[in-house]
């Protein structure tokens, strides 16, 4: 969990950039796709409506031509006196009948030839019960008997001045041989007497009628021809043929009234674009019904578009992922390095790499780090120098009390007449002062230091008596080794003045020997000792000052710090002590020749 959070923390930039890019890509592609599809749908609908208006016009003109041929034929029929005679006169003998049937046959054949372009039959019936049909009523096999009270006849005679287009099929007329047929019918009217003397029928099979528009139709682009009562006479959709459709009639009337090129309506439970035109002379509506879903489905393959867009988006996301990953990775690495550097490795430089910006940043950071290290180094140097100076200053100061006490003791010796002893003491003091003040070098040989120690101990013995014995055990090969000036004296001083507060007498031992490549000096006493629990964490006694010391201010800790400062980590002071057992101070120094 923590790791995950860390990852997120370091990759925060990448995550943000990536999310923003992905969201942008997605929204751009969604909006573009949606707009494209939408626009193309709209353009398509407009184009479609224009072309289909033309199509409807074309159908209309086809049907007008057909209608005109029918009108001409029926007019010829009506203007023919012999046909009127045939349909009105009584039965003559066989011969005259044969003649008139023959003549009528010729006339009707001539009239029919005007309709040759269409697969239309001609059927005339007269008030005298005679009828004449071409090609054995092959289109509309209806018998004369059935025709008499057929709804088509009834309607034709009811409105004798009008040319009717009506629909008939097996179920409408009850004759199973009748295929869906459209019958144009007209009453034959004697205009002078205003008397109906017959009727003429022009049946055409629905499948032939369909040819007026069939070539314009396709799946989802349907045409229906509907009469003024909403009965669909013909359609390329076979299930519509012969069906009354008040719904479609209403829509068709809407289109007609609105003068819109098309309307979009819910029809047959589908969203449809409907174009319509009305032909008043035929009382027929030509309705073009376009299934929006199918028509547009043909235009835009939504699945393919979606798939393409998805592929592109996926590719773009992968590219964005890789690029932003590369962009941010170097930055992230830099950030990570910087973070660890500030915690642990101040002297390590960050790796320079990645993009230009990152490289510059890393270089700047490295330069800054370098300067910082430089500065810190210099600061350390300065501090070291300062401490050295401080120590040296301290080392060179001699406690005035020590001087005063020693000189006072010498005065007593002189007054008591022990000149010898006084001279010795003065000599020791001189030698001591000479070594500590006169000698300018920082280190002195152990043998010289031993001289100093002896002088110091001598003076102390002179002043305080020799109840505390001092012994030296120095390995001869160490005599030439150099030690920092006055480094051992403070420990002996400590032993003299603090080691024997309760005990009245004891011994102090100074030992020096080589141990590997270091020099170990040891100051041990069998005095009071102290509890190590009073010591601080480094094992050294807490700093104490006493004006009875020879050199003021130089505590054990100072010495330890100084050795470390001068020679490094492996060197320094260790103290071991127990109450009543005495104290053991070990000074470890490098071998300096």
């Amino acid at each position, binding site marked *: 969990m923590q790791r995950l959070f860390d990852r997120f923390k370091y990759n925060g930039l990448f995550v943000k950039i990536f999310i923003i890019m992905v969201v942008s890509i997605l929204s751009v592609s969604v909006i573009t796709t949606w707009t494209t599809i939408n626009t193309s749908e709209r353009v398509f609908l407009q184009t479609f409506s224009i072309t289909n208006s033309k199509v409807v016009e074309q159908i209309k003109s086809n049907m007008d031509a057909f209608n005109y041929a029918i009108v001409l034929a029926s007019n010829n029929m009506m203007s023919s006196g012999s046909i009127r005679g045939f349909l009105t006169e009584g039965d003559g003998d*066989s011969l005259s009948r044969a003649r008139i049937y023959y003549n009528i046959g010729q006339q009707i054949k001539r009239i029919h030839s005007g309709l040759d372009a269409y697969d239309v039959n001609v059927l005339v019936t007269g008030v005298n019960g005679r*009828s*004449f049909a071409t090609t054995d009523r092959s289109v509309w096999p209806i018998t*004369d008997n059935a025709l008499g009270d057929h709804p088509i006849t009834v309607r034709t005679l009811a409105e004798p001045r009008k040319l009717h287009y009506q629909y008939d099929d097996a179920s409408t007329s009850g004759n199973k041989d009748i295929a869906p047929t459209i019958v144009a019918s007209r009453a034959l009217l004697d205009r002078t007497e205003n008397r109906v003397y017959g009727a003429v029928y022009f049946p055409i099979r629905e499948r032939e009628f369909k040819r007026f528009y069939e070539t314009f139709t396709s799946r989802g682009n349907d045409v229906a021809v509907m009469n003024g009562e909403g009965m669909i006479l013909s359609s390329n959709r076979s299930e519509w043929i012969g069906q009354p459709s008040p719904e479609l009639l209403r829509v068709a009337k809407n289109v007609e009234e609105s003068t819109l090129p098309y309307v979009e309506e819910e029809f047959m439970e589908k969203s449809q674009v409907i174009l319509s035109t009305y032909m008043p002379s035929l009382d027929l509506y030509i309705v073009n019904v376009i299934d929006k879903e199918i028509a547009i489905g*043909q235009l*835009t393959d939504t699945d*393919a*578009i979606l798939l*393409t867009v998805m592929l*592109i988006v996926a590719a773009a996301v992968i590219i964005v992922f890789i690029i932003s990953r590369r962009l941010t990775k170097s930055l992230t690495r830099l950030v990570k390095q910087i973070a660890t550097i500030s915690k642990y490795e101040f002297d390590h430089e960050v790796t320079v790499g990645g993009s230009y910006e990152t490289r510059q940043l890393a270089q700047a950071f490295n330069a800054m780090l370098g300067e910082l290290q430089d500065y810190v180094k210099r600061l350390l140097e300065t501090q070291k120098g300062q401490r050295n100076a401080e120590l040296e200053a301290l080392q060179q100061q001699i406690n005035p009390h020590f001087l005063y006490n020693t000189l006072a003791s010498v005065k007593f010796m002189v007054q008591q007449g022990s000149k010898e002893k006084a001279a010795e003491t003065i000599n020791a003091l001189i030698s001591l002062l000479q070594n500590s003040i006169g000698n300018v070098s920082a280190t002195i040989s152990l043998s010289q230091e031993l001289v100093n120690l002896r002088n110091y101990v001598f003076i102390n013995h002179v002043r305080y008596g020799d109840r505390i014995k001092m012994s030296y055990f120095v390995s001869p090969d160490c005599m030439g080794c150099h030690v920092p000036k006055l480094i051992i004296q403070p420990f002996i001083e400590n032993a003299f003045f603090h080691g024997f507060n309760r005990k009245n007498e004891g011994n102090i031992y100074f030992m020096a020997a080589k141990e590997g490549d270091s020099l170990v000096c040891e100051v041990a006493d069998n005095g009071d000792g102290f509890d190590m629990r009073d010591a601080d964490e480094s094992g050294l006694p807490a700093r104490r000052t006493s004006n009875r010391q020879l050199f003021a201010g130089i505590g054990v800790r100072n010495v330890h710090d100084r050795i470390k400062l001068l020679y490094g980590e492996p060197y320094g002071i260790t103290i071991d002590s127990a109450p009543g057992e005495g104290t053991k101070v070990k000074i470890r120094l490098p071998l300096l020749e």
Partner: protein
Amino acid sequence: MKKMLGLLLACSLVLGACGTNNNADTGTEGGNNAGGEGGKASKITIWAWDPNFNIKAMNIAKEVYATENPDVEVEVIENAQADIIQKLNTGLSSGTTKGLPNIVLIEDYRAQSFLQAYPDMFHPLTGSFKPEEFAEYKLGPTSSNGQNYGLPFDSGVTGLYVRTDYLEQAGYTAQDMQDITWDQYIEIGKAVKEKTGKDMLSLDPNDLGIIRVMAQSAGSWYLKEDGKTADLAGNAAVKEAFETYKKMMDANIVKIHSDWSQFVANYNSGAAASVPTGNWFTPSITAAADQAGKWAIVPLPKLTNNSASVHASNLGGSSWYVLNVDGKETAADFLGKTFGSNVDMYQKLVTDIGAIGTYKPASEGEAYKAANEFFGGQNIVQDFAKWTAEIPNVNYGMHTYAIEDILVVEMQNYLNGKDIDAVLADAQKQADSQIK
């Protein structure tokens, strides 16, 4: 970087859109290509006319064939005969067989005009059936250059359907009608008209079928033996047929009809007393169930003054032809296994439709021997079969209907008083100039 991405995205969208447009286009093209190409061996199409007769017969054949060959789809399409002729002529003369059926029904009168005009467009059926098993008179019209092209279907053998009840009212019986001449027929007709007020027969002035029937009964035809030369002037049989026709008109015993529907209606309504016509008229007669037992079928009258004339002739009749299109082998197999050899199927044709074929072995079947109760127990199939054997064989040639069109006009002239020899001479002249 972002710009580039954007460009890439836009390009891909455009490309994608183009891609889908292409898809849509190919989709519609595919739709247009569907249909057509009906010539696969797994499907054969058949064109015929007359749903009550030819179509029904073909549907029976289709069922029979389907029991043995269920994987072959047979589609029977009804078209008017005129349409079939028009479509065949259009298709065959343009040399393209696209949209044409595998099997087509052609009237025997027209067969030669197709076979000779488009010799390569028909698939020979020689070997698909045994010609000797079919009525001989059918083989001439259906063959060309020694090859059998048509599989003979219905017999056009004629008989005289008579209303026995009207005859009885006029003092005749069906027995009196056996083996009479046309003159005798007219006399009886006059009596019937007098007694019952009904016309003896119904004719269409635009269709000279009865002239053809009379001519063939005397072994004569509109054309000479070669099938190409008109044989009108001086053709005794045609001349007597014309005279007989006029006699009928003059005797005022003819009811006139203008089409098939009226023709049938005239008999079903009882308006006419007899029908000299092909046996295929039987279903139309029996359609009027109320006239059961009132009809008989007697031999066709013969020409009074022509010694060659017999009491048998032919009217109509057609045969099945296989077009030279893909699937012709399947089509030939179909015909050979049904109309070409299946005796049982012919029994079914007789029982279900009343269609009498010209397949001789079929007459041995039960259905051919059954009595017909509608015709008062007369064994009409046997009778027709008997007359079939007597039909004189003539060559219908290539121009039967072209000459008939001329004769229809000349007949009117004749009826209007023109001399018969002049009528036929004029017709001969016109025919000579038209058909050469």
